[in-house]
Structures are given as C-alpha cells and as structure tokens.
C-alpha cells in the first residue's frame, strides 16, 4: 500500500470551532438536548391529532349526554342519560341488531372468499406472479369506493348484467325465487339485503386478504409437508395446521370488515332496503332530524363493540398479523 505524498499530515486542531450562526447554534443545541428535538418533532402532529381528532371525539361523546327538547327541537346542554334511554327503544335496538348481524355475515363471507386467494398468493405465487397478486388485491382496495358501489348498482339493477346473465343461463326462475324470499329478497337485487351483503363483501374483501396472506406467509412450508408426511389428509391438514395458523390473520382482517360494516352508511343507502343500519341512523339523526345527541349516542355503539372486539383480538395475538 503506497502513501501518496500529496496527502499532507493533519495539522488541524482536534476540536473544530462551531460553524457559527443560527444553524450551527441550533444544530449544537439539538445535539446536546435530543429530547428538545424530539419534543419539537412530536409537537405538531400530537397537537393536530390531539386537538382536531381527540378533541372532536370528546365533543361527540359529550353531546351524547345532552338531550333534545322534543317540542322546540333545540339541544338542551344539561348532562343526562335520557338519550341513551332513547337508544334502547325497540326500533333503535332493531337497527343495532340488524347492523351487527350484517357485519358478522359479511366478515364470515369475506374470510371464506379471501382464504383461497391469500393461500395461493402466500404459498404458490412466485416472482412476477406474486407482484401481480399483490397488485391484484391492492388496486381494488384503493379504487374509488363510490365507483365500486356504482359498479354494483349497474350489476344488480333490474335490467343489469346479472339479470341478463341469469336469463341467458335459463336460471331466471332461480333469481325470482330468491327475490321472493322474505328478508333477503326484494323487488330487485339492488334493493334487497342480498345486494347490500354482496357489495359489503366486495368492498371490504381486500382488507381481509392482506392480513390473512401475511399470516400465511409466516407458516413454514415444511409444516404443511410434515403434516401430509404424517398421513394427514388435505382436510385434516387444513383443520389442524393451516387454519389455526391463519386464524390471527383472519381475526386481524375481521377487525376491518367488522368495523367498516358497522360504520358504513353509504352502501345500504344506495344498495338496499329502506330499513336502516347504524350508520344511516347516525346520518339521519344528525342531519334531517337534527338530533345530534341521539346520533352521538348511536356512534358510541360501534365504538363499544369494536372496543370489545379489539380486546378479544389482542388476546388472540391478531395484532402481530396486521
């Protein structure tokens, strides 16, 4: 190793003077007091989220303890539990029950549809195919929510593509039979609970696929092979090995599907019957009815349900799959 003669020996001082000026002084200050820099970095986001978001949530919660004067329609700003009493009326309980049932069914169906996609993507897709699968889930996830709903309005309309398809397949009678059923039926698919259900599943499906795939990616492939080596049938392997390992992913995904269904008011408004869901009740109470206290009390329902749900999910270790 030769030493270049043009490299002079160090003659500079061991400690260099500060660069001076505002910048140098500030830089030295932040280096000496890293906590100050941390504080300055955290202050804007924490203030924003704390004031705008948490502040609003508290404002909302506070309003649920106000009540509405039934004659004047004015809001009475005295703390009372009367509004929560109103929430327990049969009609309102009906709304809550309907929404929770729908959320549960949507979650179940999403899990069933999502599993094969997630399983294939995690276990068999490689390289280019893997990227394609990933985009294949991401693009619908990020596509416009309203456009997706609109697309289903086109599909489910009485004169739409689905009716046409059933006609071509000589299955018109099947569709008619289904629509004539109570509860799930209706005038056409776009004004039935069946329609609402399909659209919910469609819109939230990617939220289920991603965490399930993430959970399955972590299952070592040789575990599956070991199970079949030991003579387990594919069904047994699924029940005893794959499903338990994918479960945290499914629970993580269900947090989204469940929570999103609980809070949505646009899908049932555009595709569905005139019977309300929680979201719609909130919307109409705060809008046309002007009963903000009752609307606020209604929103507490999904918060409480999700609180329990998250608590249970956390105990199952679902957060690791998020």
């Amino acid at each position, binding site marked *: *190793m030769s*030493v270049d003669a043009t*490299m002079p020996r*160090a003659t500079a001082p*061991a400690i260099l003077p500060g660069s001076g000026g505002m910048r140098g002084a500030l*830089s030295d200050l932040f280096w000496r007091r890293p906590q100050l820099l941390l504080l300055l970095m955290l202050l804007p986001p924490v203030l924003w989220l704390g004031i705008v978001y948490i502040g609003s949530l508290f404002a909302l919660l506070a309003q649920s303890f106000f009540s509405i004067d039934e004659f004047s329609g004015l809001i009475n700003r005295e703390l009372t539990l009367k509004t929560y009493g109103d929430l327990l009326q049969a009609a309102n309980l009906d709304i809550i029950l309907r929404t929770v049932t729908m959320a549960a069914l949507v979650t179940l169906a999403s899990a069933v549809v999502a599993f094969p996609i997630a399983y294939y993507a995690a276990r068999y897709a490689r390289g280019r195919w893997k990227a394609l699968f990933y985009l294949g889930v991401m693009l619908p996830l990020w596509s416009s929510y309203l456009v997706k709903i609109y697309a289903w309005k086109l599909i489910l309309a009485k004169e739409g593509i689905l009716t046409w398809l059933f006609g071509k397949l000589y299955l018109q009678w099947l569709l008619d039979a289904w629509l004539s059923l109570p509860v799930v039926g209706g005038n056409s698919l776009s004004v039935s609970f069946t329609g609402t259900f399909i659209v919910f599943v469609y819109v939230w499906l990617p939220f289920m696929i991603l965490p399930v795939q993430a959970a399955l990616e972590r299952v070592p492939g040789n575990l599956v092979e070991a199970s079949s080596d030991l003579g387990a049938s594919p069904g047994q392997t699924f029940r005893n090995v794959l499903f338990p390992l994918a479960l945290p992913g499914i629970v993580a995904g269900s947090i989204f599907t469940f929570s999103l269904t609980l809070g949505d008011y646009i899908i049932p408004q555009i595709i569905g019957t005139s019977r309300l869901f929680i979201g719609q009740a909130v919307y109409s109470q705060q809008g046309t009815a002007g009963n903000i206290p009752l609307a606020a009390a209604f929103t507490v329902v999904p918060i409480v349900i999700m609180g329990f749900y998250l608590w249970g999910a956390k105990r199952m270790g679902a957060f690791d799959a998020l």
Partner: protein
Amino acid sequence: MTSAVSFKQVSRHFGSVRAVDAVDLDIAPGEFFAMLGPSGSGKTTCLRLIAGFEQPTAGSISIFGERAEGVPPYRRNVNTVFQDYALFPHLNVLDNVAYGLMVKGVGKAERHKAAEEALSLVRLPGYGARRPGQLSGGQRQRVALARALVNQPKVLLLDEPLGALDLKLRENMQEELKSLQKALGITFVFVTHDQGEALSMADRVAVFNDGRIMQIGTPEDIYQRPKTRFVADFVGSSNVLPPDFVQRYSGQHRWGSLRPESIRVGRATSGEGVAARLVSTNYLGATTRLALDADGLKLHAVVPAGTALPVEGEAVVLTFNREHLHLMDEPA
C-alpha cells in the same frame, strides 16, 4: 507530551448498567492502540465516547489536549470506520469518500481529486463511479477507510474493522492497516474481540471486562504477564493455576498462569513432574493441542505437530520451567 486521547475517570452509565466505569486511559500520538474484550465489556462504548456519539456521565475526555465533552461528533477532528461500514447507499463511491469534504464546503473538483487519491491509497483507484451495493465486503471496508482518511483526522477509530471479512482477507487487511498507519502517522484506535488481531497489530492493548480496563500494555506484556485471571484466560487461553498449586512451585500463595506451549508432556515413567491424564488431543496443523487432567485441575498444552504422543486416557507427567510460571497480581 500531550496524549492523543486521554480519559480521566470516565464513566458511561445507562440507567443501572455501567457500560464504562471509571476508566483512565492515555493513548499516545501516532500509536496503534487496540481495545480488546468480550462483547458488552465497554470497549465499543469507549470508542463511541471518543467519536462523540456518547457523552460521559462522569469524568473528562480530551483529544490532543482539548476537552471533548459536550462537543458534537461533527466538530471533532476524529473519524470512524464503522463495523457495518455505514456507506451511504444513495451516493456513489467517489461521493461517499468526498462526503466529509463536501459538508465542509470544499469545491467539487478539489474534493473529487482528494477522494480519488484516498481511493488509490486503499488500492481502489477507478472505483469511484460504482455504488456501494456493487462492491464486495472487502472493497466496502476499503471505501469506508478512504472516506475516513480523506478528512485527515487526528485520530482514526475502527470498530471491529475486520469482523465481517473472511480469514484470508482479514490477514491481508491486518498487514495493510498496519503499514498504512505507519506511513500516515495517524493515531489508530481499534476495537476488537479477537485477541490474535489485537496482539498482532497493536502497539499497545487495553483489555476490557465489565466496563473496566483490566490491563494496558504491549502485546508481549499482556500475553506473557497477565495481571488477572480474566486477562490470562481471555488473551490466548492461558492455563490459570490456583494459589495452592502455585505455592508448590514458587512458594507464593498467588494465582498464576502458564502458557500452554510452556508445558512439556512426558510418559508417566519419566520421573518428576505433575501427574496427569491425557483427556484428548486436538490436531491443529502446525501444533497439536492436548487437554489434560491433573488431579481435577484442567490444563491445556500445545506441542509441535509430529511430536510422539501418548494415547488418550494414558497417564502422563507434565514439566515446565519455573520461570515460565507467571504470578498474577490478583489476590488469592
């Protein structure tokens, strides 16, 4: 003469963990100084204290006579070669090397010329246009070295510089670093857990354990005259002998150490010596390492390859020169 680096009762505590505890240290200008110790012994923290990444909780540090506490790393004329090299992935090799000059405001032409020179110094001329990701481990290490040297630091710090290299490359780099340091005359301080590396490269070695310096001295000092059982055991795995055993041969009731190569192994019939049993033999190429059991005391001996050996399990007699038995300072 002013020390290049001087620690006076320096401590660095993290909560209840004493990473560095009341360390005194003086490194002479132009010295090649090694900090040796197991992981967690405080050697790397000492290096980071010199670089300025850590601040002492107590004591004072000076670099060439100037107080360094409270001085940020960017105002210390000290540069570091990081263990993972920490090359900037978004800059090419030339801009990596020129980075220190760039932030000091040196013009483009001038700093690129200096960077090219530094690259030839580490024998990587013409590699400037490549990205760090396109280099091998050994090449990255040289770039990291050039990036530090181009600033002409007063002290160069090297954190386990050869740890990530394979054996052959490591031996080459050891020689290169040594000759580079001689030629440049810059004070080198390097941290390692490999005693062979420390002994072969350094002018002086400090052995660390539990945040304290156990012993500072020349490689020969450390190897031949360990002061404590820890040093004897960690540096070159000496045989540590208990006071009762030592008393029989030296008359002093103190801990002693005996290098494995100082022990001669003979047949049990050959007379005087320590009676022992050969437990196992380990062929190492140039030498053979023997594990011995002398009445419960476990000893190792190293003999040249080709020596006629007893079979495993056979009774043997061990002999050694009294002057090779080193008495340690550590109280019994």
